[in-house]
């Protein structure tokens, strides 16, 4: 049977053609993330170029809080662990575990967004606005873009969560792996932002 059976299967279930053997959706996601690197590269470069160029305060060193952001960074890193567990579960076709870890990932993503809105509100009250100075413009645009990425990821994950009750999620391992790639990437970008914006500010090499 072998070959003929596979061909038969191909015809009726349209197993996608892949020259490299890597699923199309994963190649798509990797290529998108390469492109997204350039998006964040431009945003982070702008922040660095404008660092120390604000003509009026508040300046970053006056408002940035390492403890709070360390906590939110930890939450986001944990969500990456949950995401990895969800991908492992869906590859085992374990629907219950997949559902659980997807929910946990999304929930921790939400907590991170909560931290971020707390931080934005706090900064706003201390006079950091988009219009106030270059720090405000660059900070909100960059972290806002990152937050938007997290929000889209949370929405995507919750959609999978809801889908798992109506459709066959065990069939969607490749799709969920793609979501996972996206989620890990967004986390890694946050590590860069946390280092460049928060940590370097207090190490004193940020100029």
């Amino acid at each position: 049977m072998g070959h003929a059976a596979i061909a038969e299967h191909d015809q009726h279930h349209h197993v996608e053609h892949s020259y490299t053997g890597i699923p199309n959706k994963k190649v798509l996601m990797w290529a998108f993330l390469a492109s997204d690197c350039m998006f964040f590269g431009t945003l982070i470069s702008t922040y660095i170029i404008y660092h120390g160029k604000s003509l009026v305060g508040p300046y970053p060193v006056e408002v940035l809080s390492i403890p709070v952001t360390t906590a939110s960074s930890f939450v986001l890193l944990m969500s990456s662990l949950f995401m990895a567990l969800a991908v492992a579960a869906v590859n085992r076709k374990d629907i219950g575990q997949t559902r659980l870890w997807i929910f946990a990932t999304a929930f921790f993503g939400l907590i991170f967004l909560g931290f971020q809105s707390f931080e934005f509100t706090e900064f706003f009250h201390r006079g950091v606005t988009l219009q106030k100075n270059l720090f405000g413009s660059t900070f909100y645009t960059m972290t806002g873009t990152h937050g938007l990425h997290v929000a889209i990821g949370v929405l995507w994950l919750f959609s999978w969560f809801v889908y798992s009750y109506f459709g066959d999620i065990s069939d969607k391992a490749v799709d969920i792996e793609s979501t996972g790639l996206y989620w890990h990437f967004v986390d890694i970008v946050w590590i860069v932002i946390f280092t460049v914006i928060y940590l370097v500010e207090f190490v004193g090499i940020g100029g």
Partner: protein
Amino acid sequence: MATSADVIGVASPAHGHSDTDRELGVLGPRPVAKTGLWSWLTTVDHKRIGILYGLSALFFLVVGGVEALLVRLQLAAPNLSVLPADIYNQMFTMHATTMIFLAIMPLSSAFFNYLVPLMIGARDVAFPRLNAFSLWVFWAGAALLNVSWLTGSAPNASWVGYANITSKQFNPGLSADYWVMGLLVLGVASVAASLNFFVTIINMRAPGMTLMRLPVFVWMTFITNILILLAFPPITIALIQLMMDRMFGANFFNVAAGGLVILWQHWFWIFGHPEVYILILPAMGVVSEILPTFSRKPLFGYPLIVFSGAFIGFMGFAVWSHHMFTTGMGVIATLAFSITTSIIAVPTGVKIFNWIGTMWGGHIRFATPMLYATGFIAMFTIGGFSGVMHSAAAADAQQHDTYFVVAHFHYVLIGGTLMALLGGLAYWFPKITGRMMNEAFGKVAFWTIMIGFNVTFFPMHILGLNGMPRRIYTYSGDMGWNFWNLVCTIGAFVLAFGLLFFFINMAMGLKKGAIAGDDPWDARTLEWSIPSPPPEYNFAAIPTVTHLDDFWHSKITGKPKPQYDGHPIHMPAASYYPMVVGIGMFVWAMGMIYKDAPGGFLIAGAGMLALIFGVYGWALEGPGGYHVDPSKESGAHN
């Protein structure tokens, strides 16, 4: 005509093995029309999408061309006022924006769409609905840029939109907002399309189609799409920063708050220089297909041409500041960018010699496509020479912002890209329509274009060296520029007539051209091994590739044609959702432009909701599909 196609709808229980019933399909039935307007608006067929891209691009070529003629009329003689000065600013800004983003790029895209799957032996692109999405978002962006004319505030700050000519303070009104939103939306379309072609070329190749057996056009498409993926983000972020400044009062380019206007130039040219390779590499690919066919020889130095293309793409990111030699970057930066710019001329020269080498000793037929290909080499070489002149920073300081630069990039973009793409149209017209264009009339059109082009743009070198600046509204009669300006304007109309002849020839060919057959040019690549026009599934039997120029090889060695194995072919189903998402994006962008008007934010919100609805509908309906049996097709497989 897929008369025997059994179209599987969502509600069809008879086909338990279709994809559709494994998806939720909760958001209504899928479009099933096979002919008529709706079948085109909902199509996911790469060939139809390619044709739609092509027709849109030719439409905007005419629009941008009329804008250019108006600019030339204004400059025909000193002290004219054919157009009011502010309309003149809008006219040259929209001429450039239209030609680059709405004519040349989508015309290249049309070739990507139509040809790449055929050339690699695939039945469609990797993501057919994403392809339709790109088309719809492109239309949304094109509409945004052009509806601005109706409001009297078309973009007016030139295609480079330097800060702070675009700031709220110096550019009140909505011109810059239309420009920002239009380009943002077009960027989404380009990136989505590039993702699709990247995956398609990596994963959808027929068995045996290794990377070094890819037709050069596919290679250049691949490199171009990587450039789009990496170069569009910087401009997108710069546009977002400008949008934040204009719409929400941020300070990115606000000098009063310490912002640096030079930063815009850097972001713009980090995109802008790769963009010129995005415009030229597909054209180089087209020429690399035409030359071997009409020289009856393999492409000379195939690997060199491929690696030169890749090297050009790579170096394209290391030369951007040659657009900024007069900004006072300092000696080191000026020197560095001078050197990298000189270096990039080397792989370009390598390609030119390889093309000449391809023709050398060949059995050359000067059919219309070949005229365009050789015209490309000659004209592109002139444009390349003046480009190398710009790499010398001291000389560039003299030429900067003069008509010399205008001459240079029109030689590269019209003499280079457009010449090659017109040749590509003439070359693949028989494949796309099944009919031939008239050769004699085609040659008349070619020579009219060639003469008109040179009469228009060669004198601009002289005008530029005589100090005539770009983008000026008018000039005084005693500058010594009168004669050549008049010549340029006359040439522009000759060029316009040439293009008109080309279009008339296309229309006539479509109506009553001779039947082309599968392989009218005795060509080399896989698309010529299937009927003209190709059936919707492209290949009844997926070919197995064993050589570079496999089709040519099989014609010589008599390698048997692959035989259809009798299994029905799975085709992706059409979809409404790419259209929903595209329209949603248009409405959102319009709402953002008018966010300060009553209801503006509501409109933006409604557009965003439509977009989100479209995305969910898209995800939930799934790729879907139906089966086609080529052996029952009426006359498609012969």
